[in-house]
């Protein structure tokens, strides 16, 4: 009996398992790529994962808050594209770069808040509201222009081209720093603020949260606002990356962002997950793509099949690891008569985030 308890106590908690398995599989994939392709195992290839995906990391991290409350935001990709068009056209008219960034962030915040308000106030399903938001943001950018606009603003150019050198001549971009800061803030907010925990509570049970006296309406609006803000910030970062505004940018990227969250261990049903998850998810799909690119002989359709297959393999392995470790959850019965031993070993749950 004692032994049993010990073993169970040592178990990694369910949330952690997914994060661990994701990390493990990322290492595995990266290792496989390095063995198979010359040039794969280099700092720059590794950094490129972050450079190329900085905007996605930001967007997915913002989205994660929404998903943890049990909602969804399908508008993120369109908002990024919209922001790119807005900034490009404003810059074209000669507006100050920082003013443009501020305007973009405000747009994102308002857009997100409006979506959140509709969802919360009228009890509409997030799928529908944000789907309309997706149409709206894409459509609105067509009102500005159907062309792509190149950005020639010197501030944007210099930010875009600024290289932060790490390990020799290898570099990362400013956007990577922004993305990592966003992730760090998100992790902090999720664990160390009342709001962060309330987000998890709402995801666990909205009804209970209301009855426990949490300001659920405010939280709901706020998570969509965060998602809108992150989309706008992602839009700015994406604009640095592309130096252009175009309404056809990032068609279907919302699925990438959602997939990143899920691969990173965030349950779409809400209530579970860690905020580093999206980052790991993005890196994982980044590696998959890099492998496919290094492979270099796949035709279009085989590329699709390969990407999907690797994704499948990844998710499958993740499930297998999780199921194997999970077994059946122990129901711990403490009672006045037979107090259960305290189990100090499960610290892992909270020290690990």
């Amino acid at each position, binding site marked *: 009996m004692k032994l049993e308890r010990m073993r169970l106590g040592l178990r990694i908690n369910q949330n952690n398992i997914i994060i661990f398995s994701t990390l493990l599989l990322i290492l595995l994939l990266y290792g496989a790529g390095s063995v198979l392709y*010359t040039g794969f195992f*280099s700092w720059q*290839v590794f950094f*490129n994962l972050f450079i*190329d995906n900085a905007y996605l990391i930001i967007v997915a991290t913002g989205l994660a808050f929404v998903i943890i409350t049990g909602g969804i935001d399908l508008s993120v990709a369109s908002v990024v594209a919209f922001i790119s068009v807005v900034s490009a056209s404003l810059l074209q008219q000669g507006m100050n770069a920082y003013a443009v960034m501020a305007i973009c962030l405000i747009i994102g915040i308002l857009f997100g808040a409006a979506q959140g308000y509709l969802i919360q106030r009228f009890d509409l399903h997030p799928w529908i509201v944000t789907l309309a938001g997706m149409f709206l943001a894409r459509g609105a950018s*067509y009102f500005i222009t159907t062309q792509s606009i190149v950005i*020639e603003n010197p501030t944007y150019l210099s930010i875009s081209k600024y290289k932060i050198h790490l390990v*020799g*001549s290898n570099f990362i971009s400013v956007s990577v720093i922004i993305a990592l800061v966003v992730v760090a803030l998100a992790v902090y907010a999720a664990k160390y603020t009342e709001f962060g925990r309330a987000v998890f509570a709402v995801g666990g049970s909205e009804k209970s949260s209301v009855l426990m006296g949490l300001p659920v309406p405010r939280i709901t609006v706020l998570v969509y606002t965060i998602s809108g803000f992150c989309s706008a910030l992602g839009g700015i970062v994406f604009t640095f990356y592309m130096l252009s505004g175009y309404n056809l940018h990032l068609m*279907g990227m919302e699925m990438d962002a959602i997939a990143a969250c899920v691969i990173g261990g965030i349950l779409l049903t809400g209530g579970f997950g860690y905020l580093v998850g999206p980052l790991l998810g993005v890196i994982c799909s980044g590696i998959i793509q890099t492998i496919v690119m290094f492979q270099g002989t796949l035709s279009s359709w085989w590329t699709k099949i390969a990407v999907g297959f690797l994704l499948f393999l990844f998710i499958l392995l993740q499930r297998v690891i999780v199921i194997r470790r999970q077994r059946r959850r122990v129901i711990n019965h403490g009672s006045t008569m037979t107090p259960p031993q305290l189990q100090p070993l499960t610290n892992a749950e909270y020290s690990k985030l």
Partner: protein
Amino acid sequence: GSNNGGSGGASSSPANTGTNTESAAPASSPAADKKIVLGFSQIGAESGWRDAETQSIKDTFGNDPQFELKFSDAQQKQENQIKAIRTFISQKVDAIALAPVVESGWETVLEEAKAANIPVFLLDRTVKVSDESLYTSFIGSDFILEGQNAAKTMIDQLGADKQVNIVELQGTVGASAANDRQKGFQEIVDANPNYKIIKSQSGDFTRAKGKEVMEAFLKSDGKNIQAVYAHNDDMALGAIQAIEEYGLKPGTDIFVVSVDGIKAAFEAIRDGKLNVTVECNPLLGPQLKQAILDYQAGQTLEKWIKSDEDVYFGQKAIDALPNRLY
């Protein structure tokens, strides 16, 4: 700028040891036994036309022992194309070919390619960059010209003094091919007061959408339509079906003109259902190969290498049909 295979952390990665010959000037011809590595970033496989382009490149370079082709499909996403170029750079290819999905947003990555001394050839669409030296050459056609040719041929065929109401099936909203084909066409049509575009709607470059939109046009304007201008052949083929189902004769009752020149369009011309197709040649492989070889030989290249293209209608199209590859 530093060259990429330099000192520092890079040496810690096994992949970078040895075999780093082309950090010198790119014009130096490669060692006899060394293949010229070409990285080709293709948009995707969204149409038969694009597939023909891919096939042409693959055939040209895949069957040539002098070359090694690295192919990457971006699935319609610019980010993927940028990633692909970065990957090519880190793989140290000798040349990059890029069929850009959009015109803008290439500055940064092309600079990286330039810093790595890798020539970049653009295929079928060009890019907007402040510094023209970021790419070596653009090989492809002129969408505006295609639009103009479509309009000119139509006016020629129907007669300049006839009253003609045109409906336009646009490509994907915002796509440069759609923008320019519309622009070129509009320019010519606007110059003739007898020709009017009465409705314009996006058919997303697809047959199904082309048919659906045409159906709606026919329902609302019916007999008022004398001509259809489709931004690509697929939409035109869909529109032809819609016209037939509506009870009119495409090619006779309604004049149909489109762009691309795929084989099915030639067949439609043969059957008298399509009037004109303006060719937009996807078989760019040979031209690209020549350009790369010229570049390696140190020649200066033209900035815009125009592809060989033509306008097909009537007997000319029927004669050309047996030789169409795609």
